[in-house]
């Protein structure tokens, strides 16, 4: 008599791997260096617009100065646009770009 192969019952959850995972890449707000804007003005603007503490605003300003640009904020498109506009209104050279 042939042995009856028992049914394997799995209690593991089946995962449908065919469903793609959607990852939203954030948008970066970039401040660019220019040769005339006083450093202390950049710090004041970053503090005022983002509410950053003085040391963080200073660190970002130094990154702009030494590297030519700095990512000062990342997040959803609408807020990135809004922050970029505020920086431009304050006279800084700012743009947005999709995070790589």
């Amino acid at each position, binding site marked *: 008599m042939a042995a009856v192969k028992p049914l394997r019952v799995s209690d593991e959850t089946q995962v449908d791997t065919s469903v793609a995972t959607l990852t939203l890449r954030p948008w970066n707000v970039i401040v660019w260096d220019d040769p005339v804007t006083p450093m202390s*003005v950049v710090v*004041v603007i970053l503090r005022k617009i983002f509410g950053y503490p003085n040391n963080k605003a200073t660190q970002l300003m130094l990154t702009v100065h030494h590297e030519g640009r700095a990512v000062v904020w990342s997040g959803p498109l609408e807020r990135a646009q809004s922050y970029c506009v505020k920086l431009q209104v304050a006279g800084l050279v700012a743009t947005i770009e999709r995070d790589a």
Partner: protein
Amino acid sequence: MASRLFVRRRDGRLEVRLNDAGRQMVAEAFAHVLAAESDPEHDWHASLNGPIDPSTDLDDPLATLSRQHEITSNVELAIATLHEDFLNDAEAWAWLCSLQVALRGLVTAKGLLSADRLAQSDVATRDYITTLQSLLFGLADVM
């Protein structure tokens, strides 16, 4: 030691210590910003309308409209308080933004976007830029 152009008073107000010539210079800078925002032919107009997202041909019209509105609001407030002896924080912010926009407008219009080009510019332009920077330094110090 040079006297300070702006002083934070104990009551929180910001005292403006500019003489008539200084205020006249500031008035001209503000007038340029106001004109440049609405006049596409103005030399500074392009610098006030830089791209927000350079990867697209056109920026979101709501964002550009918001920028135009905010620049105009700031400079109108700055002009309205031009002859005040004391500014509150909102008025001081409007002065700072408008002076910084004026500085950027000037250097962009004259193509002075590098330290070398700046050093080669004429004396009058360099003096004007230095004066704007001094005003901005003074304001940033007390904000």
